[in-house]
């Protein structure tokens, strides 16, 4: 199976995965450098995980670049000097990337309000790089359009002005609506992929989806959308992919510091189909299409207030903390939940007891372990996930 790309360019799944893998593992951000070199004066804005309004970056002609730490390939030489041992890994590897000049390709950096660590990192950034653009993106925790909405619109206006100044391109409403449409399409295809994977997880293994999604950190959204589409065509063409009757699990806790690829592989080898997850949640934070008519900032505000993904770092006004997880288990016919949270991740680990309570009330099995982005040893996780997978299959057969 292959797909035609442009004039006579034939792509196989292997080719696509090689490409996606190298994009997601490239700690030198070569793709961003290349993108900038393709035209004069191009700029790129980095952002930490979870939500930032990438549409505004796109509308100003800049590239938004997702920074999700250094993974398990980056050696931390300078980053540890900035953080105590009880702080998670992602800030130290991000600092390492910056101090080793790998992020020099970025013209600015956004820090969304995900937790105190990322928040304070924004201040460290502005002290280390006093000449670079740094912005702390304080998303609202009040979901009333007249209150939190008004505040958020004002924040978006600030970003609009800042990006226009950085790029030299004023962001008019038409451009912003066009960018919204581009990201709507990207989110749409990601939703397609998640739906397809939930239906036939053996066709779309998490170990591949991982790379395909993560490539979206560095690709322009149009190219990422194309890659997702190719993957949706190519993966089902692999004749050796059959249902192996594994247990269906939802993964939770990975919305910020990303697990190493080896961990995902380990879960699959231990007998799990991942049918939903909160991996790279920022790519699909807005869960419905954003309106492309009317005032585009109002549209983004409405999408954030009313159609956002639930995450540990978002306040749940209605109090039903575990509902999204229960819904996901039901929607995806999952048999259990694996909580895989980064060590020292306050939001995920403080959230977990509430989610566990919600699952227990419904009798949904779960297991939990911690990882770090540079975890290199999976023996214990393999054992634990294998036991869990076996036990929930026994449990569902009984």
């Amino acid at each position, binding site marked *: 199976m292959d797909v035609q790309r442009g004039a006579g360019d034939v792509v196989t799944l292997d080719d696509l995965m090689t490409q996606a893998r190298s994009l997601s593992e490239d700690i030198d951000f070569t793709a961003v450098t290349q993108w900038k070199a393709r035209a004069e004066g191009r700029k790129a804005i980095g952002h930490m995980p979870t939500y930032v309004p990438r549409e505004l970056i796109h509308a100003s002609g800049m590239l938004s670049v997702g920074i999700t730490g250094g993974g398990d390939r980056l050696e931390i030489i300078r980053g540890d*000097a*900035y*953080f*105590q041992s*009880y*702080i998670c890994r992602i*800030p130290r590897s991000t600092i390492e990337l910056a101090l080793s000049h790998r992020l020099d390709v970025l013209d600015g950096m956004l820090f969304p*309000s995900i*937790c*105190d*660590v990322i*928040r*304070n*990192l*924004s*201040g*460290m950034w*502005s*002290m*280390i790089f006093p000449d670079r653009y740094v*912005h*702390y993106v*304080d998303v*609202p*925790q*009040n979901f*009333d359009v*007249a*209150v*939190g909405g*008004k*505040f958020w619109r*004002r924040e978006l206006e600030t970003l609009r002005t800042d990006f226009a100044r950085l790029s030299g391109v004023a962001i008019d409403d038409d451009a912003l609506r066009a960018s919204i449409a581009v990201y709507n399409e990207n989110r749409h295809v990601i939703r397609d992929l998640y739906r397809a994977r939930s239906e036939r997880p053996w066709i779309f293994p998490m170990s591949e989806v991982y790379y395909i999604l993560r490539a979206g950190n560095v690709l322009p959204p149009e190219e990422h959308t194309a890659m997702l589409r190719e993957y949706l065509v190519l993966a089902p063409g692999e004749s050796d992919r059959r249902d192996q009757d594994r247990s269906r699990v939802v993964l939770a806790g990975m919305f910020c510091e990303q697990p190493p690829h080896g961990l995902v592989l380990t879960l699959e080898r231990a007998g799990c189909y991942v049918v939903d997850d909160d991996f790279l949640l920022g790519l699909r934070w807005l869960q419905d299409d954003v309106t492309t008519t009317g005032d585009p900032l109002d549209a983004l505000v409405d999408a954030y207030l009313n159609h956002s993904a639930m995450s*540990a*770092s978002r*306040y*749940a*006004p209605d*109090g039903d*903390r575990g509902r999204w997880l229960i819904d996901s288990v039901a929607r995806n016919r999952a048999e259990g939940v694996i909580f895989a*949270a980064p*060590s*020292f*991740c*306050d*939001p995920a*680990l*403080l*959230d*977990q*007891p*509430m989610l*566990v*309570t919600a699952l227990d009330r419904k009798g949904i099995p779960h297991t939990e372990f*911690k990882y770090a982005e540079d975890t290199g040893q999976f023996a214990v996780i393999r054992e634990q996930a294998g036991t869990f997978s076996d036990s929930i299959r026994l449990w569902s057969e009984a």
Partner: protein
Amino acid sequence: MSAVRKEDSMLLQKQMMSDHYDRLASAHDEGRKVVYTFVPGNLNELVRSFGLLPVLPEINALQSGLRKKSGEYIAEAEKNGHSEDVCTYVKCDIGMLKKGNIGPTGTQLPKPDLLLLSYTGCFTFLKWFELLREEYGDVPVAMLHVPYQANGRIEPHQRDYVVQQMRTEVIPKLEQVSGRAYDEDRLREMLRLSARAEDDLVWTLESAKRTPSPIDAYFGGVHYIGPIFSAFRGTQGAVDYYTALRAEVQERLDAGQGPVTPEGPMGTEKYRLVVEGPPNWTSFREFWKMFYDEGAVFVASTYTKVGGLYDRGFRHDPDHPLETLADYCLGCYTNLGLPTRVDLLEQYINDYNADGFLVNSVKSCNSFSVGQLMMLRQLEERTGVPGVFIENDLVDPRYFSAANIKNRIESYLQMLDQKRGKAA
């Protein structure tokens, strides 16, 4: 004489606390309602203007630490599935709840009638009250999102956002719970009392600019901020407390005396230190002793600013009640961006003529801790004054390694000595 007067303010505070917890214990029987809320940016005057009684879970947690109960509470929370990695204030509070919710003075704490989630400078607050909401069932929550001061200055739209939340979220829920209407005149009256107490607090903290300092602005300071940061701001009781405190400190100042420690008046002041970060509560006295035994006194502290930077000029303003409360919330120390925090510490080191500074880095509090290693280097570079870095925790006794901490402090003070050429 001064030792006796010192006892006066201490006893006064103790009595205030004890009366408060007694009132809390009988609150529900007497038909009074209770609001749980957090110390930084708390809306104490607003809460009390509705006749509601505040409960501050952080205060309960630190009191549990002082009373050596926190280890047991934390273990209880961890047994119930709370991670070893996360904030021990939260776990201490949850553990206390699971073990019957007996407060620091031995009386029963009432269930909350409202959780006022003033989300100021600390992400964990949000999870904390979500957890309490689960524990207590159907308790209403009023969420007050206070935007972060990344650039260290309050933007008008941030103030508007906070005021609007008070009008649309906080006040309606306080009205609902209390059954009373919002009474702005009453609020103004309380804010007037706040400002009076605040004047005396600032005077007390700034007395440490004198040599020798009549106070320890950290280990003593945490007592001095007690009434104003917690349940008593805006009351006549707080005004009286600070009047008494000021008189005591004035007396020591006049007599050229140093701070009073748990073992009596401190010896000769040898080192003047500034400190960043909260103290440890489980071994509070042991930790303090490591300093006063060596003649080290803290002259300024950032922890005593988590409930407001009064020494930088802020006062509650009765003429703009909601706006002043918004500014108060926005301006708390942990809600300020790191560059602003470094600026403040630099000013303290200079203004208070410090010989050195301590960073007491607590595992529990990422809001304080993340970036402190960088703050240390920045401050050393800017001031030329050497700092020392200690790792610690708030209320987790497992994390207080006395030998390790003492070793560092000793090494550090000997280094200061050596640098001054006092010793060999």
